[in-house]
């Protein structure tokens, strides 16, 4: 708390809590669909991930770092919801709890708290689960969820005489396959529209992401690509738009969305399997700071040096593609776990020598 010495002396009623609340509101319908389809299985996964995350928050943010205030800001809930939405309802409870805990610890707390993370915490958590529980997470069994499903299909639009249209609409509203957040394309979109309407996200990232990803599919015309519409929508609307790990300017966001779509296409094309969702956003997360610099808005009354700008964008794109292929090669040879081990060592060192000293700084 401090008294105001500098203008302005009025302020909007914005707060971090309100931003978080809006995201949670946008995610609630998806929770409802997950519960509708898998009931107790969904609750077990969600409950254990949430339990793991909250315990970690209390232990590390609270007891070790004495920052109790941040625990209830809602960011942990969003992280857990997004994490749970990317995994199967058959994920064992201890794996989910481990994921929730790692997402909060290695995705947020060790970076210095909410807002300071460079990578999306939910995806960090998911990557940790894949690396430390490879047998569970990459087994085909985990995705054969038919036997525990409570609902197989909906018949909400069967009143429409045209059977094709009816089926299409039914599936647009509900498909019971894939990860827990992917069941309703329509409600994923509605959540996105709500967030855009409330100005919690801007349209640039999802729009450019979808455009570039769909163009990629259209150009390569590969019918056998392994992806789900729900997964892509979840990534485009909720994951890629995570505020701290995405760029801030409209031009930067557009480029970021465009590149995620491209990287997503490449990842899927080169067979990154169930993990693609983590890769394509995490790769671009790493370039956010650089994108902010390159795509800084044009300052009022100044002109853009186009040749220089084009060169910068070209080099940036080149580095993004290089990193993408590097990650894909590591994936191909099964070396991704080492990347995560390096990340763990890096973040612990960084926290010890730098981030822990800046805990009180707001940025």
């Amino acid at each position, binding site marked *: 708390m401090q008294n*105001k010495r500098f*203008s*302005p002396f*009025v302020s909007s009623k914005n707060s971090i809590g309100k931003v978080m609340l809006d995201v949670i509101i946008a995610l609630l319908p998806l929770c409802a669909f997950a519960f509708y389809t898998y009931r107790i299985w969904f609750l077990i996964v969600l409950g254990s991930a949430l339990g793991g995350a909250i315990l970690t928050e209390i232990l590390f943010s609270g007891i070790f770092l004495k920052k109790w205030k941040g625990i209830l800001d809602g960011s942990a809930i969003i992280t857990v919801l997004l994490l749970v939405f990317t995994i199967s309802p058959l994920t064992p409870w201890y794996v989910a709890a481990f994921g929730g805990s790692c997402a909060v610890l290695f995705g947020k707390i060790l970076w210095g708290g909410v807002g300071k993370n460079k990578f999306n915490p939910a995806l960090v958590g998911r990557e940790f689960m894949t690396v430390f529980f490879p047998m569970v997470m990459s087994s085909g069994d985990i995705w054969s969820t038919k036997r525990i499903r409570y609902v197989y299909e909906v018949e909400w639009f069967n009143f429409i005489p045209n059977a094709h249209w009816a089926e299409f609409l039914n599936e647009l509203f509900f498909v019971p396959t894939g990860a827990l957040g992917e069941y309703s394309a329509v409600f994923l979109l509605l959540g996105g529209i709500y967030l855009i309407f409330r100005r919690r996200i801007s349209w640039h990232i999802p729009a450019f992401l979808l455009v570039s990803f769909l163009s990629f599919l259209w150009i390569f015309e590969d019918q056998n690509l392994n992806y789900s519409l729900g997964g892509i929508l979840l990534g485009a609307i909720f994951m890629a738009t995570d505020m*701290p790990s995405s760029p*801030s300017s409209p031009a930067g966001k557009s480029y970021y969305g465009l590149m995620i779509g491209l990287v997503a296409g490449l990842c899927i094309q080169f067979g990154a399997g169930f993990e693609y969702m983590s890769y394509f956003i995490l790769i671009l997360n790493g370039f956010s700071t650089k994108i902010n610099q390159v795509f800084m808005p044009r300052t009022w*009354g100044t002109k853009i040096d186009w040749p220089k700008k084009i060169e910068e964008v070209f080099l940036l794109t080149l580095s993004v593609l290089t990193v993408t292929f590097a990650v894909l090669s590591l994936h191909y040879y099964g070396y991704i776990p080492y990347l995560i081990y390096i990340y763990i060592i890096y973040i612990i060192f960084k926290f010890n020598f730098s981030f822990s000293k800046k805990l009180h700084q707001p940025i």
Partner: protein
Amino acid sequence: MMHIPSLKYKTKKQPIAELKDASVYRIPLQSYRSTLQPLVKIGDQILQYQVLAEDVEHQFAAKIHSPVSGKVIAIDEHYISLKNDFQQQKITTEIIESQQLDLERFVQVLKDFGIAGIGGAEFPTNIKYKVEESKIKSLLINGIECEPYLTSDYAVMRHETEKLLKTIAVLNQIFQPEEIVIGIEKQHKELKKHFEKKFKNHPKLVIRIHLLPNEYPQGGELQFIKSVTNKEIPKGSIPANYGYLVSNVGTILAIYEALFNGIPTTERVITISGNAVNTTGNYRVKIGTPIRHILKELNIDAEDVDIVLGGPMMGKIVADLDSPIRKGSGGLLLFKKQQKSIENCIECGYCVNVCPQQLMPMQFVKGHQEDQNLLSQFNLEHCIECGACEYICPSNLPLMQSIVLGKVELQKMMYAK
């Protein structure tokens, strides 16, 4: 830019009221980017409208005149203190033939009468109007008072309309602009009819009223020029070089007083308002009136409130109740003390979206805090300090503090090079 609740209803309907004179005045010596040198000594007997101080060296701040007759009782670094003798003995000034003014003489009048930008910055008007060679395309009258609460410009437009038009007629004759535009916010659109009724008295004047959205900071000079003419002028340049003359309505009124009554800028209209005060209104006060005097006259209890001189977005907090009203103070506002807890920046980018200069304000917090190179890398020198970024910030980041202090650091770095 963005919309901010204007809260002008508190004072909009109120006329311009007068205030009883104070017994002591404190004449500010700092103006724009310069400090004035006193031309009087302690003990001097002075006349009303006599010049008290001037920026002899740089000519980069407007002269200041005595609002009353009386005696100089103290001079320090920041103020000349006068004791009012309530005799109102005026200095004699020559009558200006406004019909036969040429540019050179007009600029001299502006200088002699201490005319400065009333909108806030107190930029000397004579420098602004010193048009060399370039032809004036537009004479733009800025009636956009985008700061919440303030209605002093509104009151001037509403109640001093004829004076404004008379002055505009003189400017028209001197500069022969291709067009004359008065900019008004949409929330005050009733003023359009009001002006148009008065236009009948000036058949030779062709004035266009331009209604602009209620956005902040629409009244910033650069933003105003862009909205009316679609021309984007970089910060730090003089609009006249691009063919635009821009003046606030309050400045036009000050020019009227000089031209038609021979009175230098020694008073202005201010709005008294805020969320911690019930006595609100628009008042004509003399420059140099101590805030303490105004509060006493209006029976305002200023215990435990924040007192702000200027608007709520760009005004300055008043630490000392004896500090005076300045030429650029559009308001005296009282706010309940607010304490805000600062949260972490979540990089939502709201500040980037609202910044009228298209900067990335959150980088200045980082720059001020740890890496000064970011300040110049992200063009801090282009910031107009409008405060929009801090208004919208959900984390209550100290953006303006970082910007104001960051600019000082930036200057130090420039000198070091």
